[in-house]
């Protein structure tokens, strides 16, 4: 247990040292503030439009960015150390493979959590101070939901990254697979779902449940369901707008998406020969 936290602390410190935390924070904060400010660009103006529009834009941004950041952060967590040769030495230390993997995951998880909290938090403060007539309570609630679900989304893709990292033996392969996973879950899955939505004329009651199979759709559901006025903009999420299932399902589905790949990664790592 203690060894796990030592590994997690080292991983987090590495994140501070090589400026991952700083970079993610800055990217998220700048893009979030930009989206907020240019939110009215579609209607020909500048400046803050409405809270709902802003939060929907932010969640759309997060759907693309967070998975990519998480995959880039952790795709080489194991295979990188294996290629560098440090894994062999680490495995002869008094730490179990599970503890090593969980420790690394917690370290990376904290990097993402802190950076997301800071990035979106700073943007939120700037919006609250800069824009006029923002309902503060709704902003806080909406933003808290966005941050929490973004962190969860990040962890899902961290878990994918770990599964990739223990499966392959070359870093370049891991990078390629990570990109593939991003492509599949962020782009391809929704296209297929849209095609099904158009294609299935009747009896499509099961369609909303398909969304739970994709963590990014669960993320969208969490963030879009709160806004009636955004149904038009939310595209795919409209499938589930009729309240097809309880609002606890999407976060639960995401948790499953964290736990299952991570446990699979641990299992594979145990069979790993250094």
């Amino acid at each position, binding site marked *: 247990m203690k060894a796990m936290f*030592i*590994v997690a602390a080292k991983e987090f410190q590495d994140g501070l040292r*090589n400026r991952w935390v700083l970079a993610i924070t800055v990217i998220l904060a700048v893009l979030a503030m930009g989206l907020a400010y240019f939110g009215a660009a579609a209607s020909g103006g500048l400046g803050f439009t409405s809270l709902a529009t802003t939060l929907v834009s932010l969640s759309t941004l997060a759907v693309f960015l967070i998975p990519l950041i998480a995959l880039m952060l952790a795709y080489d967590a194991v295979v990188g150390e294996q290629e560098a040769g440090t894994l062999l*030495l680490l495995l002869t230390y008094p730490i179990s493979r599970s503890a090593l993997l969980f420790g690394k995951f917690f370290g990376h998880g904290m990097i993402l959590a802190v950076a997301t909290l800071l990035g979106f938090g700073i943007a939120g403060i700037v919006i609250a101070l800069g824009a006029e007539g923002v309902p503060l309570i709704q902003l806080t609630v909406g933003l808290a939901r966005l941050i929490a679900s973004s962190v969860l989304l990040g962890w899902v893709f961290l878990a994918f990254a770990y599964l990739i990292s223990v499966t392959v033996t070359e870093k370049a392969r891991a990078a390629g697979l990570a990109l593939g996973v991003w492509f599949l879950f962020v782009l391809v899955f929704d296209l297929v779902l849209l095609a099904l939505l158009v294609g299935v004329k009747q009896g499509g009651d099961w369609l909303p449940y398909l969304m739970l199979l994709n963590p990014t759709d669960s993320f969208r559901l969490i963030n879009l369901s709160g806004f009636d006025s955004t149904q038009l903009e939310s595209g795919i999420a409209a499938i589930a707008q009729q309240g097809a299932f309880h609002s606890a399902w999407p976060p639960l589905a995401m948790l499953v998406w964290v736990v299952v790949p991570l446990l699979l990664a641990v299992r594979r790592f145990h069979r790993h020969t*250094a």
Partner: protein
Amino acid sequence: MNPVIELQRVTKRHGALVRLAEIDLTIKEGEMLALLGHNGAGKTTIMKLILGLIAPSSGHVDVLGGAPDGPHAERLRRQLGYLPENVTFYEQLTGREVLTYFARLKQADRHQVTVLLERVGLVEAADRRVKTYSKGMRQRLGLAQALLGYPRLLLLDEPTTGLDPAATRDFYQAVKALRDNGCTVLLSSHVLPGIEPYIDRALILGKGRRLALGSLEQLREEAQLPLTFRIHGTLLAMQSQLWKAMSLEPTPINERCVEVNVPAENKMQVLRQLTTMPNIDDIELSPPTLEHLYTHFSTRPASLTPGASA
């Protein structure tokens, strides 16, 4: 004394490839044993088995009273130091940070970090990034890492690659001091003259098989290699009838020096004859070195080796 390491008929297969074939090996506490063999002979495989990084295909491995890959592993690994071949570290960290990280993982005394950095001569470089270290410095950091937590068992895989002769000697003297304090040492090396004065026994491996095992004396006994006499004097090469009488074949080194190989059992007899000759100034006697023994055992066909499959 209890054996620290016990391998019983250990075989390791990798697909069709046999990495180790029925190896028996017992290492007692405080012993220093060298694993010798060509690349791919199975040295690193034996170390990985002892470390519990891989499991034997058949046979039994016991290290400090338990299987190294079972629940015993965590306790065992706290008492064990390992220096892998071509050791690498986190390039972005400083030497001190690397050592501190490993010390925490091993639950070793944090104070030991400074002591060890001093001992391996890295104090001045301790706060520089490992990225800037030379091969020798990395190797020394590797040794420092292996010594964390006062190990009872040290496994050193090619520990002196990249070290200059003086550093190599310092290295082995440090290891010997540990051994004298009761630490068991298992090492592999290609630099045989470097380790010869320090080891108790040697295990010579070839293609995963045991070719020979024993102390230098035992290996010399088994190999029956001739001694080398280097004789200095005048007109030595001319006296062919003399060499013929002793049934020896001299190899001229220069005008005043020849070398002859003398079977061990004839040593005293030849020596007596030579000392009576007036034109000989000096005789240098060298028993077969570890290098000679290694060459002898590793080039001998394995099928002729007694006990190779035992």
